[in-house]
């Protein structure tokens, strides 16, 4: 088992390098971060030249990648523009945990920027994921048990509608109904913007109130998809021979479903959830944009549109690492849960 884990980790490392290279090349060729650095006015040529030198943007691509990866404190930068590189750089590079500084938010470390926003995203995504899992299990199992009934058909149709919706549509609909119209009809309404009302302050109550609509929107879509999956897994398991054996023993229905069927049907769900978990870090880019939630998704868009490579790369690498490792962890958990793999 340990050998398997080590082998997987070793396989993951070149993968991450490839990913980082791919993304870096893409990022460095998109747009011009220096364009907005002059503030309101377009950047002056002499400033552009100076900034370009100081930020290392004048170096060829592969050098920039190397600096990004292992820092430049072992190399010298030409700070004063006299053509001679004399000042040692201050970056340690990604491999030593330094993602550099944002090109856009002057000098602020990427790490700080990300850590500021990360908790906000997690507050939104983790409850959403938990709710999704609970709902999908309930709906999926119920639907499978009542196959071909009216309830099943209705739920199936609704699930289809649910996951056919782009998230901004359901976000807008829910905002419209619960935010706008409730207000109009004098009912207690839900807020639609931001994480808390600045007039009231960042209280827990405020945050929870503001969480409702974004979580609702995300949950509907994801739960619709997952519940279909749970349903089809349950149906497949219920047609297996060992379920027939369990029934032949006269076990009560509930025991057959919960004790025998569910244990088998929920295994693949672990894989699916595992694949989703790293995306929790990414936040929902669109959801956060619509609800003006200050999270990682918004951060990504803001800095991408301004070509802030260090921040964008920081976010992307964080997500990629999370994806690669969560796949590994999911595989391990699955192997542990399934006795056929655990005891071989």
């Amino acid at each position, binding site marked *: 088992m340990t050998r398997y884990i080590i082998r997987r980790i070793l396989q993951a490392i070149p993968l991450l390098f490839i990913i980082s290279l791919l993304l870096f090349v893409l990022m460095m060729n*998109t747009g011009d971060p220096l364009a907005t650095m002059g503030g309101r006015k377009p950047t002056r040529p002499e400033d552009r030249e100076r900034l370009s030198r100081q930020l290392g943007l004048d170096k060829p691509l592969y050098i920039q990648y190397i600096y990004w990866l292992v820092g430049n404190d072992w190399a010298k930068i030409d700070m004063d523009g006299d053509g001679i590189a004399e000042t040692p750089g201050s970056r340690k590079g990604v491999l030593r945990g330094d993602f550099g500084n944002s090109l856009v938010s002057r000098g602020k470390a990427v790490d700080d920027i990300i850590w500021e926003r990360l908790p906000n995203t997690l507050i939104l995504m983790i409850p959403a994921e938990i709710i999704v899992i609970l709902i999908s299990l309930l709906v999926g199992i119920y639907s499978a048990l009542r196959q071909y009934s009216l309830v099943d058909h209705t739920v199936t149709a609704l699930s289809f509608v649910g996951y*056919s919706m*782009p998230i901004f549509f359901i976000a807008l609909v829910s905002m419209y109904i619960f935010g706008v119209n409730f207000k109009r009809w004098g009912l207690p309404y839900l807020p639609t913007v931001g994480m808390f009302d600045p007039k009231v302050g960042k209280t827990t109550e405020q945050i929870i109130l503001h969480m409702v609509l974004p979580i609702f929107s995300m949950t509907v879509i994801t739960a619709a998809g997952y519940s279909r999956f749970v349903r089809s897994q349950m149906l497949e398991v219920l047609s297996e021979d060992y379920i027939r054996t369990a029934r032949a023993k006269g076990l009560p229905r509930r025991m057959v479903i919960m004790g025998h069927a569910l244990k088998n049907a929920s295994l693949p769900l672990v894989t699916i959830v595992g694949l989703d978990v790293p995306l929790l870090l990414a936040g929902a880019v669109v959801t956060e*944009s619509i609800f003006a939630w200050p999270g990682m998704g918004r951060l990504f868009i803001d800095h991408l549109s301004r070509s802030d490579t260090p921040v964008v790369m920081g976010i992307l690498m964080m997500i990629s690492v999370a*994806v690669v490792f969560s796949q590994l962890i999911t595989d391990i958990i699955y192997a542990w849960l399934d006795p056929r793999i655990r005891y071989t």
Partner: protein
Amino acid sequence: MQATAESEVIKLQEELKAEPLTPGQLIWLRFLRHKMAVFGVVMLFLLLLYSVGGAFVFTEAEANFTNTSIRLNPPSAEHPFGTDTVGRDILARTIYGGQISLLIGLFAVVVEVIVGVLIGALAGYYGGWIDSLLMRFTEAMFNIPQLFLLLVMAKFFGGKIPTLTVFGRSFSGSVIVIIMIIGLTSWMYLARIVRANFLSLKEREFVLAAHTTGTSHSAIIFQHILPNSIAPIIVSGTLSVANAIIAEAYISFLGLGVQPPTATWGNMLEGAYNYIETAPWLWIFPGSLIVLTVLSINFVGDGLRDALDPHAIVEVR
């Protein structure tokens, strides 16, 4: 004596059998039993009619015609879907937007299928280092969430492709860009399926037989093995159209997709949330059209998957 008796017996038994259904008939019948799939087909047909036929009612110029004096008007007799932030008729825009959105969806899938099938087939057929290389690459791309990759690539290609004129219509270069990047970020799943198919099929006798008769590799790939993997490709491709339409909607919504004045259902929603209270018609119409289209495609895809699944046991009441 035994042999002739056997064949006669079998003939007798065959005569007693009810007329068996051909595989094609079976697939068709199974598809039809999916009321939702049939509904999906009908709906798609109507939507196609709307987008294509509507072009005969409104011209493209009308769709892009701005008239700020009538901006943000609610639905009326003159403008059944209302007007947008610069006074353009929303009904006309949904028609032309539909054309672009559907176009993008379709062509992105064409790109995706070509790339995915090629990579999957080559990896599965040749194996060895080609397989390793291609699969490493596939995995790397697979591990980056699609939306993020799309956004980065959209930014990368943004503004680099000029407007094209095809069939007398001018298409903003961003349409081509969107088609390419959606296609180039969605092929990974298909490549995996095709590769798995090829890995299992290439050991089968009919392939070995083809080898011995000296059939070229490309002929084997395209004429022998590929037709046997058609079913999952069709299902996956169909569902991918839905994903492509949603992907386009997402990036256009975020401002990095197709640029105005070319309308798509996605970019019509951009900024609509600023007007939630005041002008819901801005997003209700294009949004609903997206949902209807995607829903119908999902129905059809689901129906196809069940119809083409050789293991499906179907009961009749």
